[in-house]
């Protein structure tokens, strides 16, 4: 049994086939990447996994249990977190509140607890606040706890999104172009951060255009083009694959 598995997943929007018959598996504790030209359907795959879209056919399983027809919040509770290609932080909430919001699914405070601030609720708030601070520290944002998310620098916003995703206590973390907009120094920091996340026992699945990062980090790479898997394997194998070069790396403006 694989840790995480897509089996013959297909998604159509009207006549457009966004993802066609996609199958692959991810081993627990690994870092894997999905690459492909713009519009290849990568973000759609993330949206299918997190329940934003439901697959037209096919199965998605985490630890042998299907995620089919689960709402997004239930998928998160099952242990899948994500970041977004175009950062979607809660702009006018502090960095700390953003991360605390990520703890929502682990919290037990009921409506009555929230209304009356029972001792149980207050204890839980303290625990969660502490945990959120630790996570901010983990991603290197301990100094920004009280700043609004929107006032952080771009690279810091990316890190905050990762901290917020980690707050949901995921088994599988989906990162949608985490390095986009980062300078080379920030990218090196990000590579180290992703490794540390994996070392905590979180499996990382990332979409990325930055080949340096993909080749450095990932153990396996899946290549998508026009919604279809055209190659899969180690970074080395993928780099030398004819079809990949043709579809993606062979383009004049392609990064290599």
């Amino acid at each position: 049994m694989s840790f995480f598995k897509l089996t013959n997943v297909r998604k159509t929007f009207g006549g457009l086939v966004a993802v066609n018959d996609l199958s692959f598996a991810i081993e627990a504790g690994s870092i894997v990447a999905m690459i492909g030209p713009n519009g290849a359907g990568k973000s759609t795959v993330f949206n299918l996994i997190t329940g934003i879209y439901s697959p037209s056919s096919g199965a998605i399983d985490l630890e042998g249990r299907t995620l089919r027809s689960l709402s997004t919040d239930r998928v998160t509770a099952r242990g899948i977190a994500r970041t977004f290609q175009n950062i979607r932080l809660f702009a006018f909430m502090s960095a700390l509140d953003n991360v605390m919001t990520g703890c929502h699914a682990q919290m037990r405070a009921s409506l009555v607890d929230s209304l009356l601030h029972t001792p149980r609720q207050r204890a839980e708030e303290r625990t969660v606040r502490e945990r959120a601070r630790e996570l901010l520290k983990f991603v290197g944002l301990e100094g920004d706890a009280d700043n609004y998310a929107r006032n952080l620098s771009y690279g810091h916003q990316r890190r905050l999104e990762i901290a917020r995703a980690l707050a949901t206590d995921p088994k599988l973390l989906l990162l949608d172009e985490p390095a986009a907009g980062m300078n080379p120094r920030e990218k090196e920091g990000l590579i180290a951060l992703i490794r540390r996340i994996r070392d905590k026992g979180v499996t990382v699945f990332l979409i990325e255009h930055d080949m340096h990062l993909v080749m450095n980090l990932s153990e396996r790479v899946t290549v998508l083009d026009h919604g279809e898997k055209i190659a899969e394997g180690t970074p080395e194998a993928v780099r030398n694959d004819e079809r990949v070069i043709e579809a993606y790396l062979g383009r004049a403006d392609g990064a290599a």
Partner: protein
Amino acid sequence: MNPAVRRSLRFVPLLLLPLVPLVDHNNSHIDFLANAGAFILLALGLNIVVGFAGLLDLGYAAFFAIGSYSYAMLASQQFGIHVPFWVMLFAASGIAAIFGILLGAPTLRLRGDYLAIVTLGFGEIVPQTFLNLSQYTNGPNGINSLDSPSLFGHRFGFSATPYFYVMLGLIVIGVLLASNLQNSRLGRAWMAIREDELAARHMGINTTAAKLSAFALGASFSGLAGVAYAAKLDLVSPDQFQFNVSVLVLSMLVLGGMGNIPGVIVGSFALSFINSFLLPQSTNLVHSIGLTWIDFTDYRFMLYGVILVAMMLFRPEGLIPSRQRRAELREALTDPGISAQEQTEYQGAAR
């Protein structure tokens, strides 16, 4: 000093409020304050829906109507049922909460303008229903001679003073509950939904449940207000719950500062003061010097309009805004730095 303690210190002057009826023996003043109290409660409730959860509700008066009619039907000669006032406070807030869920459920997929239009529709349907169910509600005549509340054998009667204390007590409870909510798991979930609903769902927030609880809790406040207001007025009729009441309460939030409890209280008191005190009193004054053809109360809506336009121009965040809302309306408009969204788009284009 502990920030919580410092926050509470600001409210010390409010401890003087219970003394007002002892100092001021003018019943019309106390009557005004008690009525203003009902509107403060309404504003606190609407603030949960609009201010905290960001769900624009233009039909909030519907829940006020449901609260008032609950009392009128269950504590009067109408059906010969006489549930005690104090029980009805709980019962009616529960009934209003249930209707909050019933009317909220169909709107869950709607947002912004669309949500506003549907809630506007509900706001019209509910008073119309009470108007047309005339065999139960006496139609346009309404229900009168409601039971007068009593406490420890002392009947409230027609004096405004006991209602003043009831309103004050309900507001204190309302403020405590609302601010507890704001600083809780649920309050954070509402804030997240208001900021970015899709991202909120990815945090494991069940947005359906969170929105429905906002509708239910918001409505429950107007259930309380409805019961107390109906008992005080000794009458309910459909024309007390027209669209202008929904607009008035929403204007109170805009004026005071949406999402911020002290602001909401100030805003609702200020508009109540203009509406029920300043305009009638100044009309009386000019009548007393012979200018009987002037009636300032006729200009009430023009005045609201002027106030709202002036607020939008000079202080869109309200008189006493939350830090958050001020940032949203000030920094977002003036900050020359490009937003994260724009940055992503720029990078997308450059790639």
